[in-house]
Structures are given as structure tokens and as C-alpha cells.
């Protein structure tokens, strides 16, 4: 079930709210758990059992680990890590691995391995990473484990962020799982935030995505102008798609009394790739930093060589996390390379250039990166670049809403640069405290909700990019 669907918005959500808020506070976790499991089983009936079983297993391992002696503690830590990484490796990367082994064997004229492709469970990249934070935070003594398996199950399966994040680290939410309140203040502002996210996804991301997919499917007719528009459209599609989903998750979480971490901070105003990664998918960056980069030594290493190795390793893994395909590895390497260049000289160079040029250059670098992200087939990526840089224009017939939506997307992605831009963003995120403002914000949210539902039902095009993660 996707958030941007009629059945979620008009059936699941209102029924959930009624049940959840009618439930006495001390039992609300059970209502949320039941609803979350229903939500997941609806979309993945076969893998729901896997999710429940792996989550329960992990819970009991960590329970045991918490009370174990040092040596056994470490063994159980690795058992949990292997369980979670193993699940991810099998379901997400086995097909890719076998495909490449077979390509290698065929290259030498040898027979290939027989393999039936494994289906990827929705959200596995997110919930395994969350599961790992639980294990590692308990191991490190950051927080005690949860006492009830149901609370742990809720932490992993909580439907607002189960499918596409944000990756909520255990220690940030542990106390909220045990005790939280949901005021009407939170419910209204959470709803308004949810609608902002829904509008970003439905009105902007889906519109741009429809154009991108249609053009890529008919690439033989694409000219240079179309190719550059595809690049721009995809750059904004992926941002509004993913940040929209994060807004929806944060909004729903707030309605339930949870405070989820922010996942985006205007990444397209970044002045360098390093700055970009402090603004894009923040929860993943922080996860990678705390659970991979720092254990590898982080910045505190003896040599630049080792530092660069750490950076490129983290980004290769980050690329691979996004998808089991060579283009994602290449994308990770691309960003890793720029992070290395930042450390070497690029940040100083960007600072000397000044705010606007550095932002434009960074935006361009990021956009080119997104083209690598978009094309699974690297030869098709090559064709795309050939068209882009041919500078031949044969046509200028585009969907009538493309340019207005692109302009709107651009302005919305950079408006914090203008005076009072941050204040305006604050309003979007709920920083208003008068009767008049909350009423106006809610009315605006309801109007946009109506338009969003109109778009969802009026258009049959409704994919979600990060679903396959």
C-alpha cells in the first residue's frame, strides 16, 4: 500500500486514526503494531512472515546479548549483524551476484550457474538498517533494549517509516516507544506536514516522473533539449519523491506522538558535495557515519590515503545499498570521488568562487550523478550522454505542465536562500502558533489534499522510486 493511493488515504488512514485515538494511551502501541503489520502484509503477504520472524529473532538475540558476558556479547552481536546483513544480502544482492558470476563464467566459455531469481521484499533496506541500529545501540550501551517484543516489533514495523524511511535510530525513538503523548497540536500539525509531503510527491514528483519515463522509453526520438530537460526533471523528481515521502512519514509519526528525525535540508542549495551529503537522506548519511565510517577510523586516521579509502568504501557501500546494479556502484563511486576531491582542494576552490557559482556547480555535479542513478543499463546511459552533448534540437513539444512544474520545483528547492526563506520553511514545517495561522494552514492542507486525491485518482501514473529499496 503506498501513501499516495486512494485506498490508503480514504480507507486505511481514517480507520487507523479512529482506532488509534480511541484506544487508551497505554494500549496504543498494540493498535499501531496491528495496523503496521496489516499495512505491510497488505503489500507483501509472503514476506510479512519473514519480517515478523526476523524481527522476533533479532529481539531475542539482543535481549540475550544485553545480559551476556563480554565474549558472548560479541558473538551475539555478530549473530544479529549476520542475520540482518544476511537477509539483505540474500534478497537484495544474490541475483546481482549470480548474474555477474555467470557473465564471468560465460566470458571464459564455461557453463553457468542455475538460479531462480529471488524477489525483493519491500522496504528491506530500511528495516534491516533500523534493526542493526537497535542491536548496535544496545551493544554500545547507548540505550537499554526494549522489554516487550511488541514494542520492538512496533519500532521495526511502524508503518509511517517502514517502507522508505527516514531511518529512525533506536536511541532517538526508544523512550517514545515506551511513553508518548499525541496532543491535538501534534495531530493537526502532523497532518499538515503529511499533506505537504503528499503534494510534493503527487503534484511535482509524479508529474516530472511521467515525463522522464516517457522520454526514456522513446529515447530514439530524444533530442538534446529533451535530454537536458529529462536530467533536470529527474533531479527534481527524485528529490520531491523522496523528501515528500519523508515529510509524510514525519507528519504521520507526529500525529501518533513520535518525533522522527528530519531527512532532508534543502540539498539543492549545497555548496559542495560534502555539504550535499549533510542535507540529503540525512538519516542514511548519519547511519553510515556512525556505523561504518567511524568504525573504519573516520577522519581520525594517520594518512590521507586511509581517509580517502574510508570515504570511497562508505560511498561504494552506500551506492550498493541503493540498488543491486553496477550503475548504483558507479554512482556511489562518483560521489565518493567528489568527497575525496573536496578534502583535497575542491571545498577551498568552491569557497573562493563564492555562494552562487559554488551552488550552481554543485547542483550540476549532483544532477549528472542522478543520470547515473537513473539508468540501470550503462550503455543506455552512454547513449543518453551522446544525445545530451550533441546539442541537436529537433523538436520542442513537451507536456504543457512540464515547464511550470520544473520552475516550481526549482523555486521550492532553493527558496531558503532568499531573505525570510528559512522563516517560510519553518511555516511549512509547523512553526506557527496562533489560531489564525493554524486555521489557515489546515484549510490550505485540506485544499491541497483534495487536489492530491484528484491527481491520484485522475492519473494512473503513481510509482514511488525508493520502493525498491
Amino acid at each position, binding site marked *: *500500500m503506498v501513501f499516495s*493511493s*486512494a*485506498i490508503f*488515504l*480514504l*480507507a486505511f*488512514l*481514517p480507520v487507523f*486514526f*479512529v482506532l488509534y485515538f480511541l484506544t487508551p494511551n497505554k494500549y496504543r502501541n498494540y493498535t499501531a503494531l496491528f495496523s503496521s503489520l496489516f499495512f505491510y502484509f*497488505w*503489500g*507483501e*503477504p*509472503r514476506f510479512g512472515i519473514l519480517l515478523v520472524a526476523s524481527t522476533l529473532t533479532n529481539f531475542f538475540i539482543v535481549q540475550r546479548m544485553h545480559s551476556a558476558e563480554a565474549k558472548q556479547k560479541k558473538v551475539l552481536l555478530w549473530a544479529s549483524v549476520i542475520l540482518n546483513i544476511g537477509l539483505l544480502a540474500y534478497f537484495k544482492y544474490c541475483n546481482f551476484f549470480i548474474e555477474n558470476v555467470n557473465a564471468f563464467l560465460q566470458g571464459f566459455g564455461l557453463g553457468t550457474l542455475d538460479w531462480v531469481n529471488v524477489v525483493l521484499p519491500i522496504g528491506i533496506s530500511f528495516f534491516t538498517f533500523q534493526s542493526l541500529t537497535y542491536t548496535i545501540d544496545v551493544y554500545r550501551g547507548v540505550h537499554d533494549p526494549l522489554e516487550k517484543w511488541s514494542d520492538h516489533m512496533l519500532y521495526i514495523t511502524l508503518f509511517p517509516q517502514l517502507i522508505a524511511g527516514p531511518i529512525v535510530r533506536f536511541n532517538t525513538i526508544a523512550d517514545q516507544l515506551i511513553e508518548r503523548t499525541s*496532543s*491535538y*497540536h501534534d*495531530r*493537526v500539525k502532523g*497532518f499538515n506536514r503529511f499533506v505537504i509531503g503528499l503534494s510534493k510527491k503527487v503534484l511535482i514528483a509524479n508529474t516530472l516522473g511521467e515525463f522522464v519515463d516517457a522520454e526514456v522509453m522513446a529515447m530514439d526520438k530524444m533530442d538534446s533539449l529533451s535530454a537536458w530537460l529529462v536530467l533536470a526533471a529527474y533531479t527534481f523528481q527524485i528529490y520531491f519523491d523522496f523528501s515528500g515521502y519523508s515529510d509524510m512519514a514525519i507528519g504521520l509519526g507526529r500525529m501518533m506522538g513520535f518525533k522522527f528525525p528530519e531527512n532532508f535540508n534543502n540539498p539543492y542549495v549545497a555548496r559542495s558535495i560534502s555539504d550535499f551529503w549533510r542535507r540529503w537522506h540525512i538519516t542514511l548519511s548519519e547511519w553510515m557515519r556512525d556505523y561504518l565510517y567511524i568504525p573504519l577510523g573516520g577522519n581520525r586516521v594517520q594518512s590521507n590515503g586511509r581517509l580517502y579509502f574510508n570515504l570511497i568504501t562508505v560511498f561504494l557501500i552506500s551506492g550498493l545499498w541503493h540498488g543491486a546494479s553496477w550503475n548504483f556502484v558507479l554512482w556511489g563511486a562518483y560521489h565518493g570521488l567528489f568527497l575525496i576531491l573536496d578534502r583535497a582542494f575542491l571545498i577551498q576552490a568552491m569557497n573562493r568562487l563564492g555562494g552562487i557559482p559554488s551552488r550552481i556547480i554543485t547542483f550540476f555535479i549532483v544532477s549528472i550523478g542522478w543520470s547515473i542513478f537513473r539508468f540501470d543499463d550503462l550503455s543506455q546511459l552512454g547513449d543518453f550522454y551522446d544525445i545530451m552533448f550533441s546539442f541537436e*534540437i*529537433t*523538436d*520542442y*513539444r*513537451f*507536456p*504543457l*505542465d512540464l515547464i*511550470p512544474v520544473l520552475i516550481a520545483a526549482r523555486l521550492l528547492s532553493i527558496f531558503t536562500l532568499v531573505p525570510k526563506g528559512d522563516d517560510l520553511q519553518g511555516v511549512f514545517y509547523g512553526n506557527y*502558533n*496562533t*489560531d*489564525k495561522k*493554524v*486555521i489557515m494552514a*489546515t484549510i490550505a492542507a*485540506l485544499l491541497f*489534499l*483534495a*487536489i492530491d*486525491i*484528484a*491527481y*491520484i*485518482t*485522475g*492519473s494512473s501514473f503513481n510509482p514511488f522510486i525508493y520502493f525498491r529499496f
Partner: protein
Amino acid sequence: MRIKGNIERILFGIILLVLLIPVIQSLLGIVKEVPLNGKVHRIEEPSLKYENIWNGTYQDSLSQYFNENFGLRNEFIRLYNQVRFTAFGIMAGSESVKGKDNYFFQRDYIDYYYSTEEKSEGYLDSVNRRVNELVGAEMVLAKNGQSLLIIMAPSKAWFFPEKIPVMWKPIKLDRSLNTYLNYQKLLKDKDINFIDFNDHFLSKKDKSEYPIFPQFGIHWSIYGAHLAADSVLSFLNKKGIDSLQGLAVERTDVTLDIQYPDHDLSLTTNLIDYMQEPAKAYNYLVKNHPTSSMKVLTIGDSFYWQMWRDEALRTVWPKSEFWFYNNRYFNAEHWKDKKLWHNRNEKRERFNDAELIIVIASETNFDEIIDAFVSEVKLNN
């Protein structure tokens, strides 16, 4: 002023109510919903079976079913169409185009006008082949005592090029493969009965008393088709093929009560703010209009409907038949019942029985209709 708790309580109640309204409406049907215009393929409610739940198909089907059947869904569709129409000038359906001054087009006609539609290799050779086949077909039919008339129906894009949005014009306009221009040139050179209504209508553009192309319709207006029907009768009479000299009109009504399909494109916009079609003219024939006993068979596209159906050729040719895209037939007496031939022999008999065969199509269907006609000639002779 700080927020008081009650405001947010009330607002949350309103939010819940708004979310529940569609489901309440679909359960209780409180508001009478106006159906949408146009045909849609509706998904059936899925049946609840264990294996369908387990493999997820039940959930997918139920989601789609819900998407089509929740309460007030039609109003949301209208809202969607209205937002896109008002903000961006986008019409519902990928085939409709909003032109300047709210003139609506079907996209194909614009593509054909600018020759931007896809053409196979050797297209000009295929046009030559078809024209030669038409000449050959005419000779075959003449041996059987049958007459042939080819009609090129007019295209709204050719008629109103000034209303086509600028972005549809290609950077390099190349009409060397243009369907209409190539057929026009070749057919005029042949000794074959051919009426080019595209050219004819363009010559009448600023002279006609009433619109011969509607603002919101795909085809010629019913009034325009009526004039065309009159021209066909006059042509056939001059050629000695039929006795009727034309259509005798008793009166012409100008009315806002628009008849379908003069506003077919605006109907399918399904907007909240429905666009009123300007008044249209409709001719009514004299009572006991002279008729012809000639058996006329027409193979053609939808342009023939307005020429044939009401107060026009069907009235004066009571023994006529219309083979719509050569897929199903309608006869003058029971024109609302589409029929299928029982077998090939019946089709052959009906074809060979006709005294006059008319082949009519607009530019966008001309290739297809000519091919269908020629294949009938080959099969039946």
C-alpha cells in the same frame, strides 16, 4: 494570540471527517453523483480467494477497484481535469489538444497536418500503390456495373491552422510525405470520382453562414456535413450516377441545444465548469423528401456519420448501408443496431449488390480505409 486547545480539537475533527466523507458517501450515497462522460473500462470488484490474497493480486485489484468506486470519485476526476485545464491548458485524455481561443483538436489531426506522425519506410511508394489499386478497383467495379466515389473528409487542423498551439509546429516543417497533399495530387490526376472536402471546406471557410467546423468537436459540424452531403448528391447527379440533385432543406434551426458529436471533445473534458458550445445550426429536410432507390454502400470512418445519419443521406437513400471501418455494418432502416455479417458470403453478397460504393475517410484514416476497401474488392472478385 496563543492557540487554544479547542481550535485544534475542532480542526482535527474536521480533518477526520474530511477523510471519512468519501467512504461515508460510498456507503450511504448521501449526495447524488453525476456520471462522467465518455466510456471507461470499469474494473470488477475482485473476489476474495486465499491464493489471491497470498500472491497479492487481490490487494492490487481491490486498490484499483477502490480507486474507481470511492464516494465522490467523479467530482475528484472533474477537479483533476479542471486544475490541469485551467492552470496548464491540458485536456483530459492524451488525444485531445486545447488550441488557441479554446478551439479543441484531436491530436492525430495536428500530427498529420504537420506530417509529424510516424511513417513507415517507403510511404510514398505505398501511397502510389494505393492510388493505382483504387484505379484498378474502379475498373473492376465498373465491369460489374458498380460506381465508385472516393471522398477525402476535411481535417480540422487544415481548417483552423491558426488555432493550433505554436509548440506543435515542428522546427523543420517537411511536407514531402504529407498524407493529404500526396493523395490529393495523385487522385486529382487520375480519372476517378474523387471529392476533396478538405480543399472544398477551406474555400468556404469565411463564406459559410454557419460554422462548418465546430469549436469543440473532432469532425465537421453536423451543418457542415449536411452541406457536404448536398455536394455529394450534386456531384453524383452531374456524373449521371444518381437522380437526386441535392438535399431540399425546409428550415435551419440555430440553437444552443447542441447535438452530438458537435461537442464531443468538450464532453470528454469532464470539467467542473462545463464549457458551453456556441449555438449551432441544424438543417431539417422538407417533408416527403424525394428519395433514391439506389443501393449505396459506404466504407468509411466516423466522418460519414454526420453525412448519413439524421436528415441527410440516410433519409434520401433508404437502401444504403454504412460499413464502419469495414468492421461492422449499419443499414439505413435500423441504423442504431450495429450488425456483423454472418459469414464471408453474406459480406460478398452485400458488397456485390451495391450500385454505388463510397469510400470516405479523413486524412488520419485514409490509408487504412483504402486498404480495407481494396481488400474487399479483391476478396469479392
